[in-house]
């Protein structure tokens, strides 16, 4: 429970912070911290069903702070989380470079999927070269920060360990002193 709460806190913080950081580095130069945090969680998570719940909550949190339709990020967070868990089984994403590449690719695919969803629900979307270029830049920026954010998620993951492991019983100490 402590781990879930901590990761939820971290994920929501990433969503909140990136909105403010976007005032420093305007899109597409601002990395998608929230997406990278989700990828970092997906790399370590065990048990898909509970992870999906966490992902959808983070997605809704993001929807509330962005201009997307409510549920748009939530749906894509589900897919992203599942994709990350599947990729972790097939690929070695422990190194910085593979992780950066994976995050960059996922960001671009995420962007295109977001565009497709917007086109479906809102309409009037044409794929333009400018958008694609912006998304590639956005992907590269996100990939660049992915190892750092993932390491931070790892720290929180280790810190919020639910299972404290075997503890030495006090009896041993009593016996030794006797």
């Amino acid at each position, binding site marked *: 429970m402590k781990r879930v709460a901590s990761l939820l806190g971290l994920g929501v913080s990433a969503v909140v912070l990136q909105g403010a950081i*976007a005032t420093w580095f305007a899109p597409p130069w601002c990395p998608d911290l*929230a997406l990278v945090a989700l990828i970092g969680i997906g790399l370590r998570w065990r048990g898909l069903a509970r992870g999906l719940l966490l992902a959808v909550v983070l997605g809704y949190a993001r929807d*509330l*702070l962005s201009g997307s339709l409510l549920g748009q990020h939530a749906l894509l967070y589900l897919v992203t989380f599942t994709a990350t868990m599947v990729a972790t089984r097939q690929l070695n994403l422990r190194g910085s470079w593979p992780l950066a590449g994976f995050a960059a690719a996922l960001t671009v695919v995420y962007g295109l999927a977001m565009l497709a969803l917007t086109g479906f*629900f809102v309409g009037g*979307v044409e794929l333009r070269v400018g958008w694609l270029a912006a998304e590639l830049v956005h992907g590269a920026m996100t990939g660049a920060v992915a190892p750092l954010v993932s390491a931070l998620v790892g720290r929180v993951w280790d810190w919020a360990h639910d299972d404290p492991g075997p503890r030495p019983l006090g009896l041993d100490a009593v016996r030794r002193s006797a």
Partner: protein
Amino acid sequence: MPDLLKRIGAPLTFGVLALLAVVTMVSDRRSLAEGGRDLPWWQAVMLEIAVPIQDVVAAPVDGLRGVYRDYVSLLEVRQDNERLRVRVAELEEANLQYREALVASGHLQQIASMRDEFEIPMLPTEVVALDVKPWFRSVLVDRGASHGVRAGNPVITAEGVVGLVTATSRHAAKTMLLLDRQSAIDGIVQRSRARGIVRGRGTNQLEFEFVVRGGDVMVGDVVITSGLGGVYPKGLRIGEIVELSDPAGGLLQTASLRPAVDFGRLEQVFLMMRRGPTMDLLYGENDGPVESARAPSGRPSS
């Protein structure tokens, strides 16, 4: 049975959550099509938590920008002063002549009463967060329902129209920018009075769609709000035509419009504290707490 549940647990969870997301998307789309909403408390909580944090995070950069802007302004202030003195003298002269003409025609009193009617109180507010994804164009501002802000309030700067409040919590409001693809405003060309619709493209430019026949539109024309549509008041600057597309035999022609507002540098914006009649029809005139709005220290020119 437990084995089966274990096996289909994850796909089932995925399916249910995905369906939930689609349902909320459809319902949100409907709500947006009706002009926006005041958020229910469980959604507003997120904004209430986020905005103060984002305010603090954005503060250092805002401060640095402010110092730089003040420095640059200081360098230009003498030249500006000279130029403005001349301009004020010219305008005072012109104003005097117009007043004389109006007094002569007996219309001055009538115009004075009209002006009182159209004065709209404004609330200055800070932009605290932007969307990260390039094609969503919304910002969060740090004033909400407790300051009298309601969904449907127009948002402007001294340069022109910024967008529209689409959702509010007590201390924050989400604003859809003109650039968003869901945004559309009725506009007129200031020079020729040709009418059309200004739409967001999701890029840094807008699209002006007008009827080819009789539509006198040229590159360099300024487009302003027409007041029709009942959302924005008439006469607010939207942007300038930068490119005309080939009509290709169609009835409608489109033009690219450079927005009057620099959306990349949005810091302080003004919330117009009176909604248009269409918005009042959608929401009812007295939905939500409305406190008296403070007048901004510097009134936007539009």
